[in-house]
């Protein structure tokens, strides 16, 4: 069994860190052999980090428990969801805390019963409630734009003739696909909207090639989010990735429709 303890120094005599996200090291101790490994925490870089990075580190070390002074509710939620026991309010040196944990004193102090692995992995009420709540929030966030798209399509159907929409496209397969990719590049947001708009464009007589390029470019290429991507991942990365994804949306459109037509020719 392995436990992880945030600490200010890379040894067993180091003081236990007060916060999981700010300690310089994460000392991982194997309770069976008492062998330990001091891993440099992402917090050691001096940059502000999110608790989730330390959580990822703890999970990657396959620890069974995390003992710390304080753990944010979010980090605790993710650790618990990964089957890792979290004990907070812990103080002293790493070796003292390890001994207390081995004797079960820490759990006794907190009045906590240790859960079995099998019990943790079950879908329990709180986990289902949390999943429902998260899904509901995601769904509610999706709805305003979705309703807007429905209403806009209704307006288009009532005011714009199919001929007008069709006239925006050239009737040339290559140029229409390029145009579809350009439209997809300009817009961003939940892919569900691109499916609905794409489906309606088909009704208007726009080619499946153009619609496919539109759907793929909608998610993979983003002019709107380009500044954010540049800031996070670098100018060259963002530029090359978006340019390659734009070209790829056209390639994907041609291959998808080509294979679809081939299959239709074979079976229908």
């Amino acid at each position, binding site marked *: 069994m392995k436990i992880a303890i945030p600490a200010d120094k890379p040894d067993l005599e180091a003081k236990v860190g007060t916060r999981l996200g700010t300690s310089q090291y994460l000392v991982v101790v194997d309770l069976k052999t008492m062998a330990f490994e001091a891993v440099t925490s992402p917090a050691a870089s001096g940059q502000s980090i999110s608790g989730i990075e330390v959580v990822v580190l703890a999970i990657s070390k396959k620890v069974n428990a995390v003992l710390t002074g304080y753990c944010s509710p979010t980090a605790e939620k993710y650790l618990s969801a990964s089957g890792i026991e979290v004990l907070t309010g812990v103080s002293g040196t790493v070796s003292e805390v390890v001994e207390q944990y081995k004797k079960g004193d820490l759990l006794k102090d907190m009045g906590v019963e240790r859960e079995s692995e099998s019990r943790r992995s079950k879908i329990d009420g709180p986990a289902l409630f949390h*999943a429902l709540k998260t*899904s509901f929030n995601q769904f509610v966030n999706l709805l305003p734009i979705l309703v807007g798209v429905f209403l806009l399509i209704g307006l288009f*159907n009532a005011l714009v003739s199919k001929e007008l929409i069709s006239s925006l496209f050239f009737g040339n397969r290559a140029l229409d696909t390029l145009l579809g990719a350009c439209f997809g590049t300009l817009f961003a947001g939940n892919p569900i909207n691109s499916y*609905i708009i794409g489906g309606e464009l088909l009704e208007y007589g726009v080619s499946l090639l153009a619609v496919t390029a539109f759907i793929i470019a909608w998610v993979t290429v983003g002019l709107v989010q380009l500044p954010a991507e540049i800031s996070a991942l670098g100018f060259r990365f963002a530029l*090359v990735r978006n340019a390659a994804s734009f070209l790829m949306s056209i390639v994907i459109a041609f291959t998808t429709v080509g294979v679809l037509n081939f299959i239709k020719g074979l079976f229908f």
Partner: protein
Amino acid sequence: MRLLVFPASVLLIYGILLVMMPDRALLAIRSSGKLFLIILMPLSLVFILMVILNLFLKPTHIAQCLGKGAGIKGIILSATAGVISMGPIYAWYPMLKTLQEKGVDSSLIAVFLGNRAVKPFLLPIMISYFGWTYVLILVVFTILGSIGVGYCVDVLVKEKPSNYIK
């Protein structure tokens, strides 16, 4: 609040239309309602799939998948992470930045971003519009396309290309 700007603007257009061309406005409302009814069933399936994914997949699982391993294994894991990731892309940038700083290959991050176009929980909607065959072919080519984009990033972004596809 920001999310409401777009639907509110469309509603404003409806308001103006209702005053100026009431028959057209009613036609538009009827058309929107019809569209909503068509999509109601697939939308319910979307919610159920969202709950299932939220129940079994945590962001930590995705972070663990992304960037783990090299070569084909790394590509498969990054593609999987992209497929199962949910939420707006902005929410993922900080984690991607951290992973890039930790040495995760840029090409694998590109594979992850490319595979965000494959959304299992939205498949019911896509199928209702385009049919099974099309969706299946599109998903396969989207995944292959993301690997192609990853290769471009590997060659053009890095000074020295890695063993991305060997």
